[in-house]
């Protein structure tokens, strides 16, 4: 039996070997890919990546581009609305589902099923439902309300909300399930204590329960945010960025410039800006998750 202190590296060697796929993915793909992207964002690569550095030119152009600014604005609007609405709708629905209701399974299934569909499908369906000549607007008009106007996908001012309707439709089910799971995890005696204290139900939710659901909110926040940053398929399927450039988003900007515009450098610069934004979100999260508390 060993009396020498063995090399640290060999302790739990199997575990380390088993983690190699993860380490490789993390380091080679995510870190490596990111670094590669950042490096090439300083070049003037066109169709193929080329190491001809041009400093910050791509970034200057990026921020001078009207479409990028619109994209960022859209993402902000969509992001904030989607975050708030997803959380609110998800939570309210979860709270309703938590009232020991009948047909809970049915309602839950109805609310969650869009989650199983792809964004492409979601985009198509809602594009159709919101089509003024075929969808809701024409139906309401043919029902007699002739002046009814609801054509978000063809109105540059509100097109992003048309996308939002579809995005919420698809995403809020999962949030609801997460919240519901969180609610179910709350100690029943908290509810009892609040009732004995004579606290109205809504106050119990707002002042006691919601603060207790912090971990769930963090999980959902991560989920929703990562979805928002990646928003692409839905836009492409639903509006293709239109009308005009009114519903453009950064991910689409990246894609279009990299592949359609054959200007990789510009695409990489835009990606780098997006990654930067992600880092701003994720660093506080990682800090909360790993910084203070240790397992014990």
């Amino acid at each position, binding site marked *: 039996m060993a009396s020498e202190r063995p090399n640290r590296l060999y302790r739990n060697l199997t575990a380390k070997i088993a983690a190699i796929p993860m380490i490789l993915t993390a380091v080679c793909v995510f870190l490596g890919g990111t670094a590669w992207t950042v490096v090439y964002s300083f070049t003037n690569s066109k169709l193929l990546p080329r190491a001809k550095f041009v400093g910050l030119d791509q970034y200057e152009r990026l921020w001078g581009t009207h479409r990028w600014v619109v994209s960022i604005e859209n993402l902000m609007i969509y992001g904030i609305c989607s975050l708030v609405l997803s959380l609110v709708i998800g939570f309210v629905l979860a709270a309703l589902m938590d009232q020991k209701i009948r047909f809970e399974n049915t309602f839950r299934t*109805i609310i969650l099923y869009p989650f199983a569909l792809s964004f492409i499908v979601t985009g198509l369906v809602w594009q159709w439902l919101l089509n003024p000549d075929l969808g809701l607007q024409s139906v309401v008009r043919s029902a007699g309300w002739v002046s009814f106007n609801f054509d978000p996908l063809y109105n540059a001012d509100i097109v992003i909300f048309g996308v939002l309707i579809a995005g919420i439709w698809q995403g809020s089910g999962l949030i609801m399930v997460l919240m519901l799971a969180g609610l179910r*995890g709350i100690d029943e005696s908290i509810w009892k204590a609040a009732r004995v204290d004579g606290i109205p139900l809504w106050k119990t939710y707002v002042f006691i329960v919601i603060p207790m659901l912090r971990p769930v909110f963090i999980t959902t926040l991560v989920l929703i945010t990562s979805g928002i940053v990646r928003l692409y398929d839905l836009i492409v399927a639903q509006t293709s960025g239109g009308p005009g450039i009114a519903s453009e988003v950064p991910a689409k900007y990246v894609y279009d410039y990299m592949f359609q515009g054959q200007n990789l450098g510009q695409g990489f610069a835009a990606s780098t800006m997006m990654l930067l934004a992600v880092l701003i979100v994720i660093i506080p999260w990682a800090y909360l998750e790993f910084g203070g508390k240790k397992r014990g």
Partner: protein
Amino acid sequence: MANPISLSVTAAAIGTTRAELSGPRGARPKRAISPRNVFIYGTLLLVSVYYLLPLYVMIVTSLKGMPEIRLGNIFAPPVEVTFEPWVKAWATACTGLNCEGLSRGFWNSVRITVPSVVLSIAIASVNGYALANWRFKGADFFFTVLIFGAFIPYQVMLYPIVILLRELGLFGSLWGLVLVHSIFGMPILTLLFRNYFTSVPEELFKAARVDGAGFWGIYFKIMLPMSLPIFVVAMIIQITGVWNDFLFGVVYTKPDVYPMTVQLNNIVNSVQGVKEYNVNMAATIITGLVPLIVYFVSGKLFVRGIAAGAVKG
């Protein structure tokens, strides 16, 4: 049982006033249509309409003929039910020269989805297990990077991965695509598994180590049998993701292994004259059918697994 209580009770009962006895008694009266119930069920029903409307429209439209669609109301049920759009979507819709509809892509999708799901879950569950129970130095760092990966827009990684796959000699093959799906599924799945395994009592793990089980012994004999709910969650998420993927399927493979979604895109985007909404809708439903069925079948386990794995952020 005859005991002193009954005595004391009668004595006390005599002492109480008659007014007391006439007060409310028994269960609190409940009305089925209370404002509370109206609010709850009303809201839920209203919300259900919002969630069901698209599905309804999809189904109804897919059963109509084109003339009917052009004339009418998208919410009206079909006057004349026709399954032709379904047949067309499945078997005869054309893209370029291929007129096999979605059927061409269905088996490809299966062939892509099954190994992708299996591999990604296998890797992610081992990762999660290693992270939760065998915390080695640097594990948290790698994990954070992995989570960071969850936020990277796919488009950004398109080229680096092309290069990666080329170097691995996997580009264009089914396995290359499987690998890509495993890589992009890894962050969220690993998070799920890690959270789940963290919630398994540590003592179980210790007991198994004392019993002489190694890394794999504990994983297969102790952890795996306990983690059905989280596997279901991972499976649903991954099946949905992989099956619905379009970008990777089209970029990293070639036509003979194109998944169904590529076909769907082709059908939907190859407009021949007017858009054939009924065929599009039929194609859309057919494409979404597999994840929908998987989800309907295992929905309950999904919710259970979510409760077990995801909430403890």
